[in-house]
């Protein structure tokens, strides 16, 4: 089976950008959560740092502020979840808070939250699990002031993995919610 290396490389870059940003924030341990509440809205572990547009690019070409590339590179589009869980982890909250600030700064942008699951579940169950994850992110953004009307949610279940591997490391990447800009970005 062919492996789409170009796509994989691109995704790896995006993953790196997200990871490095997350690494800047403090990473408290995930708190135990009650699993039976629908789409709980977790509070940010710390006040989100104000979003500052990217400084004048040191390199000739950089993301245009307010563009999808700005969002992906400087904010990060994906957060990751624990196995069979949908509560926003504490270590993912700074990134989502950054998303909310970015979206509040560019109010014409609309988003679709895509919930994803690893392949260690059945298709139908994972569609439901992905929907929980997408809604958990949605609720977080709404609590941070993003208008609900700007957000739609979708679950891809396990149909859209970003890592083709069959290790825990690959599964961890595939348990995510992606905030995709659908309209209004520069």
């Amino acid at each position, binding site marked *: *089976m*062919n*492996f*789409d290396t170009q*796509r*994989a490389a691109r*995704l790896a870059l995006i993953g790196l950008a997200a990871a490095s940003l997350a690494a800047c924030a403090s990473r408290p341990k995930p708190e135990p959560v009650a*699993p*039976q*509440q*629908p*789409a709980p809205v977790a509070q940010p572990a710390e006040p989100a740092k104000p979003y500052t547009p990217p400084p004048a690019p040191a390199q000739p070409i950089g993301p245009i502020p307010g563009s999808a590339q700005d969002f992906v590179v400087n904010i990060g589009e994906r957060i990751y979840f624990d196995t*069979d869980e*949908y509560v926003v982890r504490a270590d993912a909250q700074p990134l989502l808070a950054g998303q909310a600030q970015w979206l509040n700064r560019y109010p014409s942008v609309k988003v*679709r939250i895509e919930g994803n699951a690893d*392949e*260690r*579940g*059945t*298709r*139908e*169950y994972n*569609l*439901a*699990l992905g*929907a*929980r994850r*997408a*809604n*958990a992110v949605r609720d977080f953004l709404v609590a941070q002031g993003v208008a609900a009307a700007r957000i739609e*949610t*979708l*679950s*891809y*279940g396990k*149909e859209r*993995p*970003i*890592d*083709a591997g*069959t290790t825990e490391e690959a599964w961890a990447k595939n348990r995510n919610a992606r905030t995709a800009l659908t309209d209004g970005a520069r």
Partner: protein
Amino acid sequence: MMSPKGNVMRLKVLMLMAVALLGGVALAGPAAAQIEVDINAGAVKPLPIAVPAFSGSGRGAEIAQVITGNLERSGLFQPLNVSSVSDKLPDVNVQPRFPDWQATGAQALINGQVTVGPDGGLRVDFRLWDVFSQQQLLGLQFSSTPDNWRRVAHKISDAVYERLTGEKGYFDTRVAFVAESGPKLARIKRLAIMDQDGANPQFLTDGSYIVMTPRFSATSQELTYMALRPTGSSIYLLNLETSRQETVGRFPGMVFAPRFSPDGSKVAFSVEKGGNSDIYVLDLRSRQSTRITTDPSIDTSPSFSPDGSKIVFNSDRGGQAQLYVMNADGSGVRRISYGGGRYTTPVWSPRGDFIAFTKQTGGQFHIGVMRTDGSDERLLTTSYLDEGPTWAPNGRVLMYFREGSGGTPRLWTVDITGRILRPAAYQGAASDPAWSPLLD
């Protein structure tokens, strides 16, 4: 939508008991115990059977090959290579030379004859013989159009299977599935349908959107399945005869996991709202949808009991996915699975005696069966990923898909004893099989 044209025309297969010609054939001999195959023992030793090419005009060899393939794949029969047998069986009404067949080790013999009438119609006569008692066990005649020769071969296979096992056959059936292509990170999924032996595969969608979980109606004339696009999910009803397709309801969230009621009057499915998935039932006559679960947990994969009175589904209301049975109106919910691990995709057997499921435990996936009260749980398979069982109409064989760590899913079958486990005839990348009822 691509048209499944020509694909599901109703068959005019006439089945007639062939009696008159064979009145005196059975030899007067010792009333030897007739051969029989005990399907529920999982056929520790398959029955040796000879299926020489049918005589007469055209397709005789192909018909015998299709029958041979069906019987072999069931795991209950061991078709023998009998090309060297000198008895050429020129006329189906002439008794075989039994010593020739006894010498092959065959215990049963199928011989047949193909004739094409002046009107172009196809007529296939066949006999099933007990080689050692020298008795005829079955004699039937099928009439059809020549292009239906495969279905005639499947009907003969079903008749032989039923005569020798006492269980209904499942060969004159079709399988809907998801045909997969492309790398794991950009997989293309197309709705497809084929004969149960992998013949006549046809694509019903073009792969421009994800499809999942096709399921047949009781008449085999309709499929319900789920489509997933960036704009949202849909559940469709597709009429295979007319290619007409309609959407089941409009809901703001995800809709998925559709399955017909046994009488075809309803579809049960899951609707997600605000992250919570519940089970709904749509009455296809009144077009009214009723929500029948309200728990703030994942409730999905509903499957009706054969009488339509109950629904089995999976829910994580107890902490992780387990199986529950409720009345078809949502009342009387009770948990039936209590083992360790996660239980999903329950499917009620068309015979009503078992529920098949997918189970995850110890880092592996299994296909298993249990009684409808949850007792007698048995795991039939183990692999990195086994998922989505579907019952053969006789309730004794399951098809499911297995995906190795290479990422390519394939269709497999297993009998309810777990002893007869093998790849299905279709060798392409495929998932989410749905086995049709026996065709008319």
